[in-house]
Structure formats: structure tokens, C-alpha cells
């Protein structure tokens, strides 16, 4: 039954990339929405909102993504909610990304000088307008580099969805390896593919970061 590692296997692994990418996109989009809410709650005036969001962040940054995926998948089923793996992965990754992005963006929001908020307040802008027109555009500039950096982490993190049955890149590698017993070629290929996806993003993040530094030390 051992078969030679062949073109079909390469194709199988490469095709699995779409799951890696799809899950990353879902997690990022979900995390962006959730992260914005968390960041706003974290930097709001309401003590209750700040506390709740802090606990949320604590939990999701304080436990392994592996465990989160597992609990969401089996847990929702335990609660008699019929769910499919894609939905479970989407929910778990979204929560995970929300916690991290929320924390990154809270930092960005707080890095905007307080004078900006005061000026906007003195101009009698509403909370919504202050955030939308004054604070968030500036925070976005500060936060874009660490956000791209986190995206890399998220892409790598989707490898853990294999535990709930996703045949994404890492899992595809394991499956092919089980049939071919050729771990170096198989995992080497998998590593190279991850690198090709992640490295450009890392470089981009570093460029953005350097640009930010220049903008501030001008």
C-alpha cells in the first residue's frame, strides 16, 4: 500500500491550501469585526464594557487555540446545536482572532494622542463621529503593521483545525505522509508552501513598520 510520493500527492497538498486560505480569510474577517468591537469596548468609558472585554481577551489569549477549536466543535454539539466543522472552525477562529486583534487595536487607539480626542470633543462631535472620523483613521495607520503580523500567525494557526477534521495544508501533509512514509519531502513541501504564503506578508508588515517609525521620528 505504500505508494511513491508523486505529482498527484503534490496536487492534493496544494489543493488543500484553499482550505488554509479560506479559513484564514474567514478568521480574519470575523476577527476584524469582533476585534473592532472588543477594541472599542476595551477603550470605552463604561467600566462594565471594559471588564467584560478584558475577560474575553484573557480567556482567548490565555488558552491554546487547539483547545478552543476542540471545545467549540464538540461543545456546541454537546449543547444540542447541530453544527458543521466549517461553522465551528469559523466561530473558534473568529473568537481567537477577535481577542488578539482587539488587543492590538486597543493599543492603536490608545496610541492616538489624547489631544485628538479632546479636540474632537471640543468640536462637539458625537462619540460615533469622534471614532469614525478622527480616532479610527489614525489608529488604523498605527495598527496596520501589527495586524498584518498577526495575520501570519492566524494563517499558521489554521493548521490546528485538522483536529476537527479539516483537510487543510498540514492535515493534507499528514495524510500523504501516512500513505508514502516520506516525511522529509512531504513536510518540506508543506513548510515551503506556508513560507511562500506567510513570508510576503511578514515582509510587508516590516515595511509598514519601518514606514511608521520614520513617520514618528520625523
Amino acid at each position, binding site marked *: 500500500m505504500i505508494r511513491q510520493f508523486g505529482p498527484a500527492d503534490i496536487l492534493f497538498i496544494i489543493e488543500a491550501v484553499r482550505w488554509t486560505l479560506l479559513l484564514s480569510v474567514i478568521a480574519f474577517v470575523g476577527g476584524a469585526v469582533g476585534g473592532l468591537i472588543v477594541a472599542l469596548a476595551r477603550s470605552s468609558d463604561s467600566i462594565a464594557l471594559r471588564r467584560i472585554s478584558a475577560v474575553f481577551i484573557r480567556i482567548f489569549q490565555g488558552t491554546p487555540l487547539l483547545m478552543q477549536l476542540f471545545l467549540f466543535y464538540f461543545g456546541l454539539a454537546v449543547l444540542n446545536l447541530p453544527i458543521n466543522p466549517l461553522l465551528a472552525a469559523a466561530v473558534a477562529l473568529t473568537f481567537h482572532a477577535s481577542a488578539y486583534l482587539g488587543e492590538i487595536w486597543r493599543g492603536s487607539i490608545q496610541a492616538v494622542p489624547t489631544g485628538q480626542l479632546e479636540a474632537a470633543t471640543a468640536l462637539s462631535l458625537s462619540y460615533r463621529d469622534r471614532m469614525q472620523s478622527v480616532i479610527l483613521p489614525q489608529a488604523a495607520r498605527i495598527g496596520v503593521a501589527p495586524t498584518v503580523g498577526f495575520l501570519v500567525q492566524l494563517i499558521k494557526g489554521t493548521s490546528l483545525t485538522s483536529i476537527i477534521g479539516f483537510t487543510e495544508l498540514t492535515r493534507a501533509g499528514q495524510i500523504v505522509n501516512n500513505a508514502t512514509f516520506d516525511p522529509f519531502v512531504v513536510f518540506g513541501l508543506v*513548510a515551503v508552501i506556508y513560507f511562500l504564503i506567510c513570508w510576503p506578508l511578514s515582509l510587508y508588515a516590516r515595511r509598514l513598520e519601518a514606514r511608521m517609525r520614520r513617520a514618528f521620528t520625523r
Partner: protein
Amino acid sequence: MYHFNFTPVFDNFYLLLYGAWLTVRLSFVAMILGLVVSVLGAVARTSRYKILRGLVGAYVEIIRNTPFLIQIFFLFFGLPAVGIALNPNVAALVALVINVGAYGTEITRAGIESVPHGQVEAGRALGLEPVQIFRYVVLKPALRNVYPAMTSQFIYLMLTSSVVSTISANDLASAGADLNAKTFASFEIYLVITAMYLVLSLLFSGLFRLVQHTLFNYPASR
């Protein structure tokens, strides 16, 4: 309807506790060694020698852009081919150190670059050697400046270590998996383990705060 049954979990709780202790020990040693690697890496990354900078740069990029799972696979199954068969627990430790060292190198480098150049010049003007300047003038303020980034990387390291069970290394996650194999009370077990990881990360956060108070307890210059 699922029937919750925590009895098997708590009957075997000592196994999980032992696993948690292994995770703490593994992460803690990896943090210390990772810090050493980070500092050395950062020095190399800011050194005059282009080759050294390039090598460390490649190390950092490769590690940061591939999943930990793949790295640990290579280390455990790959090294025996060149005659180095690491015991799974050692392999897990080495993999974690290599991994956190890559992130830590970047963080520490940013810290070193955040120390004003005037500090180095003052050291030079006082007749200190470059190594002394690094050790006594630059290092502490550099680490202080990036301490929050470093500690959250350490927490992340502790959470990532849950993956080492794949190479049969022993930790909290593998203790849970073994218990799962015996009792099949999966949901209960993972719930408890997740809570235990949360407690561990809170404990580590507390430890880091304590370290900050004792080690970096000087007022920031304006």
C-alpha cells in the same frame, strides 16, 4: 443529549496536575533558554558582520513563517537521520527554544534599537569596552522597553507547547489525551484542561509582573 460526567476527570485529576507541572517546567526552561537565544540573536542581528546578520535573519524568517507543528516534526523525525536522536521531551524543549528564540530575537532587537545612542556614547566616553557597554548599559533598558511584548510571546509559547504531544512528549495536553484514551470523556477533559491552561497563563502573567517589579523597578526617564 450529552450526559456530563466529570467523575473520571476528577478521579484522575492527579494525572492532569502532573501534566500541568510538566507544561510549566517545559515552558519555564524554554523561556529562560529562549531569552538567552533572543539576546544572542539580537546581538548577531545588529552586528557588523553581514554574514552573521544574514544567517540570523534567515533563521528568524524561516521560523516565523512556518507552523510550529512542522518545525517540531522536522526536529524529532529529521535529526536522527544525521545521527542526533533526541528524546521527545528534549526535542520538544529544543523546538520551543528555537521557536521563541526567533520571535524573541526580533523583539530584543527592537529593544536594543530603542536605547538612545547617547547611552552608548556615554559608556564609551567612560572607557567601557563594547561588551561591557552592552551588558551594563544597553541590555537592561532594552529588555525593559520590550518587556510586555516579550512576556506575551512567552505566554504564547506556553500555549503553543500543547502541540508537543504529537511527538509523544509529555505535557498537560498529552496527559489529557491519555486520559481521554482511557475514559473517552473528551468534552469534560478538554474543558478542564482549557481551564487549567487559563490558570497557568494567569500564573505566568503574575510571575512576569513580579519579575518586572523586582528587575525593572526604576522610574522611566521622561
